[in-house]
């Protein structure tokens, strides 16, 4: 079922205005190239789902793609704030941004429920915190065997799930090594999927502690070398920590950000 096409075609085919879209990758393998293509295609009113919005959603939010953000930790890791995210929440720039926030465990379990074809799953957590007051997607239910109260979280099933991976074979089987985050879960939970990869190869020869995600979960594979920069792809290139530090200055004011967006994203074809 997997088709190898250009990223431009894949985004045009799969991502529509108003969709719920998850671009995942936990620090590792963040699909920046796909995000930039969505920005270039000027998608609007997206509900963006992601555990750690990171620079990738800071850029999409600043570019005006998002109407809502579902997330669990919205910082620039080791650096500080996400300034476009804050500007959208605090000042509705460039458009108002609705938010729904969870814990990492809650988000991970919401993806697990989605991947499992369940409307919800159960976990310990949220109890005693202020988080449930601000979302409809957490409830508390009683164990039918012990009576113990546990948290229930609603499944997330994005319209489109997009991840980056190191490699794919020509059948569309996907290979990842290093930090795997929720890449598998978001592909399985999403109605439509795109995977950008460093390279398409004939044979996925094993790499240390790798996982393979079978092609059944993949609609489109796009070969995009460097597609995770300034995040990293273990075995290909390292995290560009300087770019993460530099983002703090670039994103600090709107005009500086807008200039960056034109030069580094919109004007690239």
């Amino acid at each position: 079922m997997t088709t190898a096409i250009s990223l431009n075609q894949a985004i045009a085919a799969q991502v529509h205005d108003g969709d719920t879209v998850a671009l995942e990758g936990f620090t590792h393998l963040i699909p920046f190239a796909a995000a930039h293509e969505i920005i270039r295609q000027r998608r609007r009113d997206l509900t963006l789902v992601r555990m750690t919005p990171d620079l990738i959603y800071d850029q999409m939010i600043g570019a005006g793609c998002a109407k809502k953000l579902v997330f669990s930790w919205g910082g620039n890791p080791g650096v500080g704030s996400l300034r476009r995210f804050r500007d959208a929440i605090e000042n509705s720039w460039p458009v108002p941004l609705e938010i729904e926030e969870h814990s990492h465990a809650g988000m991970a379990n919401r993806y697990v429920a989605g991947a499992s074809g369940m409307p919800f799953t159960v976990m310990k957590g949220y109890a005693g915190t202020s988080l449930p007051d601000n979302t409809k997607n957490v409830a508390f239910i009683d164990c039918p065997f012990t009576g113990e109260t546990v948290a229930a979280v609603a499944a997330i099933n994005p319209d489109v799930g997009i991840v980056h991976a190191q490699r794919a074979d020509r059948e569309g089987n996907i290979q990842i090594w290093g930090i795997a985050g929720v890449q598998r879960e978001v592909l399985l939970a999403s109605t439509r999927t795109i995977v950008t990869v460093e390279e398409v190869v004939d044979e996925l020869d094993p790499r240390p502690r790798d996982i393979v995600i079978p092609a059944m979960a993949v609609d489109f594979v796009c070969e995009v070398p460097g597609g995770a920069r300034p995040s990293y792809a273990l075995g290909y290139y390292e995290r560009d920590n300087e770019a993460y530090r530099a983002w703090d200055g670039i994103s600090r004011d709107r005009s500086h950000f807008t200039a960056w967006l034109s030069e580094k994203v919109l004007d690239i074809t």
Partner: protein
Amino acid sequence: MSESTGTAAEAWTADEIMSIVGSRALRDGMSCFVGIGIPSTVANLARRTHAPNLVLIYESGPIGSKPSHLPLSIGDGELATTADAVVAVPEMFNYWLQGGHVDMGYLTAAQIDRFGNLNSTIVGSDYGAPDVRLPGAGGAPEIAASCREVTIIMRHNVRAFVPEVDFVTSVGFGDGAGFRKKHGLTGGGPQTVITDLGILRPDSGDGELTLTAVHPGVKTEDVLASTQWPLRVAREVGVTEPPTPGELEALRALKSS
């Protein structure tokens, strides 16, 4: 306490003694779920000093990481390549953390209250229009819920030490005795709060934080003045051991790595 150029005994900053005392809370061979920021510095310092067999666990998936330099994010490549195992994020939270296998969780936050509850979400009284929007929860709520014990490290001042947090991101002892049990929080909660002024521990009765030690040169009045509620003080307030030259050297080498 600011930068010092004085005698050997004063030759450290407030942040340095906080980190060093923080590292001492970790025992060799234990497993520690390491939060973003200072906790990562402190845990890596412990591994380079008295706890070489500390099992570092990062929420991104690595278990047993042995990084050669301080990672900027909790998902740097070296954390994975030096780990005993790297697990998917749902497995990390459900099996390893929630399953009760982690000895200590190490956290920081923007606000802490008298019962050790933490806020890393918003400053202000209106969630919809916060004075300051902070990064949010991340892994902290479940670390606080499920680790056998929690250690908290943060700078001590009246903005951070508030009677009641603006938003409960992570539960300490809630509103006091019985709260954790009532809410099914299986871990032991915050047993140690380490600041740049001293150490606080929960009252064994209701869990209210109590000053038990100050760092060398810090007075109990300094701590009271830096806390927005009338802080309980132990009958005997100890004084922490000053940093050793070896600890200071290891910390400075780590920070510059």
